[in-house]
């Protein structure tokens, strides 16, 4: 029986990741309007500022904030984190796929992309 191809795996990762993150973003927007009582966006609102020097530590912060004390800022930050993780997971899945089929040339190529992205997500 034919297993899923790389194209199938990537296609589903993209659509599931984007749909989930947009649903969470929409819920966050509703929470924002309910909480603030206005639809005006305050660009200087420190709660709404998504600043992270280490993205992976930020994921843990955002997740624990959503689980502990969910509010518009943490829910919308979770949506953005999931959105950014979608292409990242797509590269990780590609590395696994090429390794499974022993195409080591493309394991190295995808690992280079993954290493650059990971470094840029951590080192800032």
């Amino acid at each position, binding site marked *: 029986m034919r297993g899923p191809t*790389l*194209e*199938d795996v*990537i*296609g*589903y990762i*993209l*659509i599931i*990741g*984007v749909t989930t*993150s*947009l649903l969470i*973003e*929409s819920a*966050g*927007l509703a929470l*924002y*309007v309910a909480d603030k009582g*206005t*639809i*005006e*966006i*305050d*660009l200087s*609102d420190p709660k*709404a*500022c*998504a*600043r*992270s*020097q280490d*993205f992976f530590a*930020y994921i843990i912060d955002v997740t624990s904030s959503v689980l502990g004390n969910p509010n*518009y*800022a943490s829910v*919308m*930050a979770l*949506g*953005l984190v999931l*959105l*950014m993780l*979608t*292409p*990242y997971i*797509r*590269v990780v899945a*590609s590395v696994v796929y090429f390794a499974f089929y022993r195409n080591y*040339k*493309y394991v190295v*190529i*995808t690992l*280079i*992309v993954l290493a*650059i*992205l990971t470094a*840029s*997500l951590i080192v*800032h």
Partner: protein
Amino acid sequence: MSSDVATIALTSALAGFVGSLIGLGGGAIVIPILTLLGIPLKQAIANSMITLIATSSGSASAYVRERLTNVKAAMYLEIFTVMGAIVGATITLLVPSKYLYFFFAAFLCSSFYGIRRKVLTSTSYDGKPQDKFSKWLELEGAYYDESLAEEVSYKIVRAHIGGPAMMIAGLAAGMLGIGAGAFKVAIHELILKMPPKASSATSNFIIGMTALAGSTVFIASGLVNVVLAGSIAVGATVGSLAGSRLLPKMSDKTIRMLFLAVLIYLILQMVYKGVTSP
């Protein structure tokens, strides 16, 4: 001008809709509109860049499952676009906004390639013998072209030139918070000799990764506002999905006129902003 959730989401939806119709991509339209609404240029760029992951991934998901996307070519080219986008986004943080307006206007001019491109057909691949490096990278592909009712197979050439050229596309995308799709497509077709449909689909696929690379810099800079980014992401994605539904029903002439009108307006607006900004 007001920057509230509803106005940002609706204008982003309109930008995504028009961008999807004319093939310009949401970012190139949404950023000039956000500046009109009073959002500072660098914040418009940073927040729009993250939302590109959403707008590009919807269609990328369909293209990749239809085998239009050349995944191996994309993985190889992403090494260069990702590096370019990180450098580009870093430059944006350092350069005064006044110059970014002019860069934006200049880069939009590369989108005129989209007009010339319409005359190309899926059979533009000229069957040149593949060079050793491209062959070593296993850069070839095949897909079924419904409009031609035949299988189109192709071999990519000059990967050693196309890769570094994609770094420039990534640099521009990272600097300006856009997909730089027209520029990427030009490299795919003119240097790598990919057929148009594979070229568009592969460019769309790479845009999501380039957007992530640029976003890694912007999220560290504190320019990303979750409410602003969320409003753009939801609006632009819904708009671009609606645009892609309408696209097959519109005539080429209408699309081309709309493309020209929008492009010229955006270029003039960015030049005006550059001249009048302090």
